[in-house]
């Protein structure tokens, strides 16, 4: 299966978002791929509010089964969450569990006005009632496949399909 071009999808996603944003809207990328996408969107949209990042490891629902993962990144929310519209940005949307963890974490910083979700790829397979507001590309994958966003040394984003 040929994967779509990630850089082009980022630009497309930025165009989708442009019309729906409030002047105070803040983007929050989920480590690691979601942060790369959010950085692209943040630059393309010229947002004033600084970019937020989340490592949802502390909020994952599989902690008691698989423990903490190595290489944790600090979460960084450099703006006041209270009453602010927030867009969570991730690379690939699958079960929806990561998004649930991210929403839980955001609420520990304050009560946002609303939360929307923007993703590069929606691969289906939801296990929670999570619905993205913006999707650059949708496709259906078998559960035995993993779709990963990668970044080259030169900083170019690409999608790669691997066996789970």
């Amino acid at each position, binding site marked *: 299966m040929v994967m779509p071009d990630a850089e082009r999808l980022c630009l497309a996603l930025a165009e989708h978002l442009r019309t729906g944003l409030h002047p105070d809207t803040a983007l929050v990328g989920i480590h690691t791929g979601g942060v790369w996408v959010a950085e692209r969107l943040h630059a393309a949209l010229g947002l004033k509010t600084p970019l937020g990042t989340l490592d949802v490891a*502390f909020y994952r629902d599989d902690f008691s089964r*698989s423990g*903490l993962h*190595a290489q944790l990144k*600090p979460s960084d929310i450099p703006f006041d969450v209270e009453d602010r519209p927030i867009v969570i940005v991730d690379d690939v949307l699958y079960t929806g569990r990561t998004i649930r963890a991210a929403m839980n974490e955001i609420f*520990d*910083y304050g009560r946002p006005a609303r939360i929307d979700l923007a993703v590069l790829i929606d691969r289906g397979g939801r296990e929670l009632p999570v619905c993205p507001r913006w999707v650059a590309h949708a496709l259906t994958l078998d559960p035995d496949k993993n779709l990963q966003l990668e970044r080259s040394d030169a900083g170019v984003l690409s999608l790669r399909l691997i066996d789970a």
Partner: protein
Amino acid sequence: MRNPQLNSHGELQHLLTIDGLPREILAAILDTAAPFTEVAEREVKKLPLLRGKSVFNLFFENSTRTRTTFEIAAKRLSADVINLNISTSSTAKGETLLDTVDNLCAMQADMFVVRHAASGAPFLIAQHLAAMGLEHIHVINAGDGRHAHPTQGLLDMYTIRHYKKDFTGLTVAIIGDLLHSRVARSQIHALTALGVPELRVIGPKTLIPTDVAQLGVRVFHDMRAGLKDVDVVMMLRLQNERMQGALLPSPQEFFKYYGLTADKLECARPDAIVMHPGPMNRGVEIDSAVADGPHAVILPQVTFGIAVRMAVMSMLAGN
């Protein structure tokens, strides 16, 4: 004999001592602690990692300060925290240490944080849990006799790394009552494991343990010589009951020769940091001018201590 604090996969099952832990595990704890420091700045200072878990603070020796830091760490991880202060006199009335442990296990404990006056008590508990088939219950040593205080040692390492970045070029001095200090023993094991090339201990011969050089330290009895060009100064607490008698003649003489003053600190490097595990005896082991001065990182130690304890609890609960 397998190190009783590691499980069959070589992961940390209990934290009993730093002695014998590989550098990779120490580095992993410090790396894991970093993201926890930021939790304290949130509106809701809580993470759900230990939600539904019961953490028993099992203190056979009173220590409000250490117990509080563990309590905060556990509560920020959403655990249910139960504090038990069990003076040794009440256990002397009949119930043994292991009776107490068995009782708490029957109450579905998930983690014990143990402080005990006898060296090795947390090992006894861990071995007992293994013998009872209760491997899922984790034990954290919060200080046992003169033996170990591993979370204090780890938070000290976190502090040093925060200010000095790298361990492999440092000269570090630990000063004062090493004989009775569990903190010093944990610091020595951590610093040597993390690759500190020059580790010194300074004190009068009455307070330096036998054969301590075999743990990888250089022994100094002259404080100025020992402080020469050090990057990190780690002071130890001198217990009141040891200030006079057969170990030391008086607190005044100790302060004169081994107390950290601005004057003596000038022997160290200009950017040296000064640490103390607390609570301090001002005017006995450290002068107020130093404790409150620009080199001191004593309060950051306390802050980092919460994050390090959160990291340790989360890692154990996940293994």
